[in-house]
């Protein structure tokens, strides 16, 4: 579903990505680990066509994101570290707008309420203006947008950083549900524990390269941490 082929990105003389290859299939939760500046966000932005690759391709459903971004974005949902919404609109109104931007016009008001219920946003909050929301609530709306969009691939950039453990746990539950529905999920994170718990595969990045890939069922929490730290040395 998501596929990076010899993906390179330079900012001026600085090479942020030095030939990345990775695949995330349907039903995969691929966790990208790596130090600050390793190139995780750059990778995600390339799939979103927010930045133009220097060479190589970021493919979504077999289509080059740089060649036909309007097409690839039909399949994608994006949840950044901070889901930013329109403060003067309610959660429901935000959801409706983004769902329709994604090309889904057919939902009823009940459907929208249903999505917000499913991600665990309280009824009364849904009708409130978003400027009164906590970060956790906004991340939930972000997931609801992905649900409404029926996205086949999710790009998550540290979506749980700063969430309390319970909210973080709820978020992971939602990811597992989406995975169950056959979504391909690529998530950049610094949370080794969650990566091991929810992820199916893990990729460790360093200075723009993928230095190791492993399956989460191959390693224990302790092993993962040891391997990660070894690469960071």
């Amino acid at each position: 579903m998501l596929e990076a082929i010899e993906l390179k990105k330079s900012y001026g003389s600085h090479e942020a990505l030095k030939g990345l290859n990775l695949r995330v299939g349907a039903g995969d939760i691929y966790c990208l680990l790596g130090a600050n500046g390793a190139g995780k966000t750059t990778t995600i932005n390339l799939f979103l066509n927010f930045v133009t690759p220097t060479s190589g391709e970021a493919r979504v459903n077999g289509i080059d994101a740089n060649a036909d971004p309007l097409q690839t974005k039909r399949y994608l949902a994006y949840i950044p570290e901070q889901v930013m919404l329109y403060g003067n609109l309610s959660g429901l109104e935000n959801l409706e707008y983004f769902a329709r931007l994604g090309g889904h016009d057919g939902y009823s008001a009940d459907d929208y309420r249903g999505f917000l219920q499913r991600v665990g946003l309280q009824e009364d909050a849904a009708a409130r203006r978003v400027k009164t929301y906590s970060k956790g609530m906004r991340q939930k709306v972000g997931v609801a947008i992905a649900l409404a969009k029926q996205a086949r691939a999710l790009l998550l950039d540290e979506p749980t950083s700063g969430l309390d453990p319970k909210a973080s746990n709820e978020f992971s539950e939602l990811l597992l549900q989406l995975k169950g529905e056959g979504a391909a999920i690529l998530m950049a994170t610094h949370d080794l524990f969650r990566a091991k718990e929810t992820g199916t595969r893990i990729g460790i990045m360093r200075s723009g390269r993928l230095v190791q890939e492993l399956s989460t069922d191959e390693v224990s929490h302790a092993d993962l941490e040891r391997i990660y730290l070894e690469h960071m040395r």
Partner: protein
Amino acid sequence: MYRLIVSHETRLLARTGALWAILLLLVFAIGFAALAGGRSVTRQAKGAADAAAFEDGVRARMQADTEAYAARLAASGGTYEFATVDHVPGRGPPQGTNAGVVGAETAAYVVLPPTGLAALSIGQSDIQLRYLPASMGTTLDMVKNLEIENPVNLRTGPFDIAFVVIFLLPIFILALTYDLLSSEKERGTLAMILAHPVSLRELLASKIVARASVMLAVVMGLGLLALLGVGTQLDQVETWLRFGLWLLATLLYSLFWFLLAVLVNVHGRSSATNGIMLAGTWLILVVIVPTLVSLLATTLYPAPSRMDLIVAAREAQTAGEKGMGDALDRFYAEHLDQLPAGDQRAMDFLTLSQANAASIEKALLPLYQQFREQALHQEALVQRFQYLSPAIMMQLALNEASGTSTARYQDFLDQAYRFRGEWNDYFASRFLARSPLRPEDYDRFPRFEYVPEPAAAVMARLAGPLAGLLLLCIGMALLPLRQLRRYQVAAR
């Protein structure tokens, strides 16, 4: 997709105070400007009507005198004679029989009729006197109240609707658009939107359409209300054609400012930077460039001063009087009314003073010509430099559409001078022939009939500014396209 974003943007705008504050200000500004414009037009119309009524009254009394005189003669017998200078009322022929007196002491007012839109753009009309007295004597008497030294004044003084549109509307537009993209980027919603199948171009266009349709609907609606409220001649096609051109110019001018905001926004700088750049551009285009062009016009082509005109008139007069014989003659030349009745000299002096006025007029002719030429030069220079600033183009277009342009006024002045000549010839020829004015002559005095300029002439003058604004808008729409492809979506 466009529709969705446009309605979303409209909803967001409706929920922010800024739009409402701006619309309220606009309503007040246009309301006040319309009232001021309406008042200025009524004041000029009333001034013209009062002045004309006064002169007509004087002539009506003279006509009545000649009628009474004719009736008296019919009863008593005798010939209808020409009055010399009469200061004994009731005896002999009344002054009204003397063409020199009637032509010199009463005036016919020449009036430039306002267009139906005059109240929308007072423009130069505060310095353009729209009714002038035509009488014998010299053209100097006609234009002495006229502001002839600065026929080109781009710094719109009056608070009229044109001022609101040219000065304030851009500020309102920029207040709504200076952070068109930068605010989305700073808020973080830009990445959220662009993760959906929407192009940046689509997004920008929709955002502009949402704002432009609200602003333009309001401005045009208010313009229409103003026209209905303080406009005149609403039953004439010409008024509505002019209003159509007025709207077209307003549309293009507004579009320019919207597109300018787009152009600044596609470079991805912060809202604060965008705001400062746009405010600076406004200052340059709306204030500084028009002032400089105006200054350039009056510096390169200064009109002769009013003083020159007066001095020249005096010199001509003195020269004329020198040819007039002895001191007594000279005294009576200045105090014609104190000549004893029936004195032959009265006749001679009236003739002499007529000749005198003619020679003064002749001496002044080159000066008038110079005024006219300098005014045309100034106008031509402004026409040429208008393309430096949409505000100048807009001012020219609005003045032209409202019939307050310098060119229309110059044409009126030409007609006015011509009429004064006609008036002078009519009375002078009768006076010099000593042919008495009869009551029925009063109905045959020359009348000023304003000849409207041909529509083609007006359109030709409008073509420059309108085409300039249109091309500017097209250029401004194309300019951001390349930069847009390089736009950095991800915040750093």
